[in-house]
């Protein structure tokens, strides 16, 4: 599988480290329900068959976290964008 890094171009998936679901937001640690929210953030994952937004770290290239839109059933990649916008 080749992943289209927005900076480096298409690269073999072996250059990337996988993290997973990119739709999650780190909860507010000061919120009254922080325990529950962090439990969900750390452990609870959907396992969609189809479109999935996920984090890949381009460890072998630009060292940027890349948000990749991948179809989990076909590995087709619809797009990729860098985390955090331009620095």
């Amino acid at each position: 599988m080749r992943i289209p890094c927005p900076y480096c171009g298409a690269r073999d998936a072996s250059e990337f480290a996988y993290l997973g679901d990119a739709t999650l937001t780190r909860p507010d640690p000061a919120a009254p329900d922080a325990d529950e929210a962090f439990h969900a953030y750390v452990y609870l994952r959907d396992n969609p068959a189809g479109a999935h937004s996920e984090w890949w770290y381009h460890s072998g290239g630009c060292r940027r976290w890349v948000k990749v839109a991948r179809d989990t059933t076909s590995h087709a990649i619809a797009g990729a964008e860098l985390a955090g916008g331009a620095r």
Partner: protein
Amino acid sequence: MSRLPSGGRVDRARPLSFRFDGKTYRGFAGDTLASALLANQVRLVGRSFKYHRPRGILSAGPEEPNALVELRSGDRREPNTRATVAELYDGLDAASQNRWPSLALDALSLNGLVAPFLGAGFYYKTFMWPAKFWESVYEPAIRRAAGLGRAAPGKDPDHYDKAHAFCDVLVIGAGPAGLMAALAAGRAGARVILADEDFLAGGRLNSDVARIGDEPSHAFAARTVAELASLPNVRIMTRTSVFGIYDGEYGAVERVSDHLATPAPFQPRQRLWKIAAKRAILCAGATERPIVFGGNDRPGVMLAGSARSYANRYGVAVGKSVAFFANNDSAWTSAFDMKVAGVNVTTLIDIRREVAPALAARAKALGIDVRTDTQVTGTTGQPFGGALTGLSIRTGGRNGRLAADTLAMSGGWSPSVHLTCHHGGKPVWQEDIAAFVPGRTPPGLSVAGAARGTYGLGDTLAEGARRGTEAAGDLGFAAALPDLPATEDTPAGITAFWHVQGSKGPAFVDQQNDVTAKDLGIAYKEGFRAVELMKRYTTLGMATDQGRTSNVNGLAIMAELTGASIMETGTTIFRPPYTPVSLGVLGGHHRGKDFRPTRLTPTHAWAAEQGAVFIETGPWLRAQYFPKAGETDWLTTVNREAKAVRASVGLIDVSTFGKIDLQGRDVGAFLDRVYINTFSTLAVGKARYGVMLREDGIVMDDGTTARLAPEHYVMTTTTANAAKVFQHLEFCLQVLWPELDVTLASVSEQWAQIAIAGPRARDVLARVVDTGVDVSNEGLPFMGAIERTVMGGVKARLFRLSFSGELGYEIAVPARYGEALARALMTAGEEFGITPYGIEALGVMRIEKGHVSGNELSGQTSAGDLGFGKMASTKKDYIGRVMAARPGLKDPDRPAFVGFKPVDKGQRLRAGAHFLTIGAPADMAHDEGYMTSVAHSPHLGHWIGLGLLKNGPARIGERVRAYDPVRGNDFEVEVCSPAFIDPNGERLRG
């Protein structure tokens, strides 16, 4: 001789000598081992897998199930090589497989008598029997009887390579469709790779006799290949099998030197290609199917198109009297071709009542006896060798006999759809051609020619050209359809037919795995009717040929049994690889010590000079210990090194630690969020020990971080976690808190870092720093971190840190000066007897001091477990804080960090021993933790340990049982503080 007087694509001016089972034969350049054997009238080439039945050559291509040989000898011996694709070379040495004592006289062919025991479901049924029967009786017998060739005895002397290729259009198969596809895309300017498993491009153009335009098909192929070779944007890769599609990339293996006795100097034997292609066109052709009838595995029974190929491509007559048995027109064309080429074709047997009048007329004109509405019901053969001598036939209800030494059969053709299935596509049954054609294809892949059931030559050429034009056009190349030459098309009528009912003797469906029609009947009766179950129960299609000649027949027979249609019955799934791939080529150069790259520390050469013994720690090689003359075991050496450090001074390279420079306005705030303790308050010029957690509350890593300037910190990580921590920090900065002004730079490679430790460490340091650098207790106090120069102007970072518990410093210099620094420290410390020490002694001293390391940072321990609970700030949030407060991680009964010493001081402790309350039974319910690290303490004179014990810190002074059934140890230890020496830290502050 069976070599025809003329014809074929072999080079009769280049005779080659080869050996098969010890006997010498001659062939020609351009032969395969199979064609050369047939030319020498060698018909028996192997014994079958289970029943040891004599087998001959079935095919002329990669689908071959029978003619598997051991190629070459000694450490280059390669079992299960298909003689039909093994290119002949001078001196080739091959041996038949799976026979004992000889090919002709095989004692184990008696297996045929016990065939019922080896039938469908044999393995499953046998495994049901008592295990001791399996081990003592059945397995040895089966291992002796079944199986294929023998692996080479020693290490493969050849090397293998891997490479990447990129193209616009990958064309798989260089037959008529592939050549035209490559030509269309190549002429348009697209970068084209044309890959073909054969050593001669052209596919069936070399095996058929047809006219294309005004030239024979093989000449058309050669001319087209020459044009393609002249295009700079086209790369032709023969001897290259594309074996799999992996999400847009194509795996291929190039047999660089398999056609040579030994590879040329420095040439690999094989090369693995990963091809990134924007478009691909599958032009893999089709495979002919056998007909299933009794005795169809007898040497002399072969595929009709293959017999034709032997005549036309290799100039070989496969027999002296050749009969055909078919259900389709292509076999008739094969028969005509061969007759014209000079082969004695006697009879055409066809199951159909009627064939096209033109075919019948042509047969008559060529003097071939035609038997329509006729089936072959059995075969007779020679004793022992078993080669074919005659056929039993049935016309209508009448039985008869025919003499023939060769039967060329054709049950129709199966498009080579395998690669189209690698992304989950399912082939679709096409009734009119009685074949599965590609269903949904992988993205970017189209199919042309016989691989999608297009059989006519003109149609195939046109389809290839069209697909090539389309692929190039898709990619923005202005592609014009090449002119299509005129062709004469041959008829392709077929009546689906699979299995001669009521024939005599075992009727083989899968010849390589010895699966018969009767086995399928057993599977049906026992309920294994779904194709995937049938496959596994009978092993149909599970041999090295992956059922190329057997799958469709097998499921068609199952469909007949169940009464379902073939489409309803469906096919099994074809998975990569399409063809067997050697493990050697998958490894490439990465074998032995080159399995993975080795990282060398800046002082490696110096340490080697000092006689270091090295040890792998991840990719790094680090000095483990430095034995001196007369020291015969490692413990003696390690004891000496540790004692020398505590008595005077020693040095060790610690460059392998991860080192990260952090710069920016918000570094302090950032560190506060990733460490459990506070760094924003750290003074410039000071370092602090920190612990970071994963978001789930478990400890990720530890290390010291120093503040070199108000907006500049440098972090150290453990050697093992360097990359992981960097990645984590980048996640925090890029994803969680992009608003923070922090930039990271890995400086692990920039700085060599050497630790010196021991009461004389300051004296040594003072001699390497430049004039005016104050390293006194005031100038560089405990946990100080300053940037100065050493060795006459070399930039250095000086840290006063200690892992050993002694007065210690770490000196970082640019990596090029690392070795010079080690030498300078040795000189400076000479008068104190400075001792180089390795990571063993370092480990001993850190255990004596009670510091945690990798064994304790196991990915299962919380900060509280390791005694860092009080370090954690309560005034801020940090990664892992919320989850670390979970009841499970706060449970006071969790095993927590303490020290251990044996009650009997002579006992050797072992990491991994589990703790039990004395008197408690040794079971999981009473498990109270385990020993994580042990060392022999030269300081104390006995073994000491660190470990995690339930409620440990509250049990100091108590005795527990250290139970290690793996090594057979079971004795009492005393729980103690993990700080075995200098618990108040007086030495390191001195």
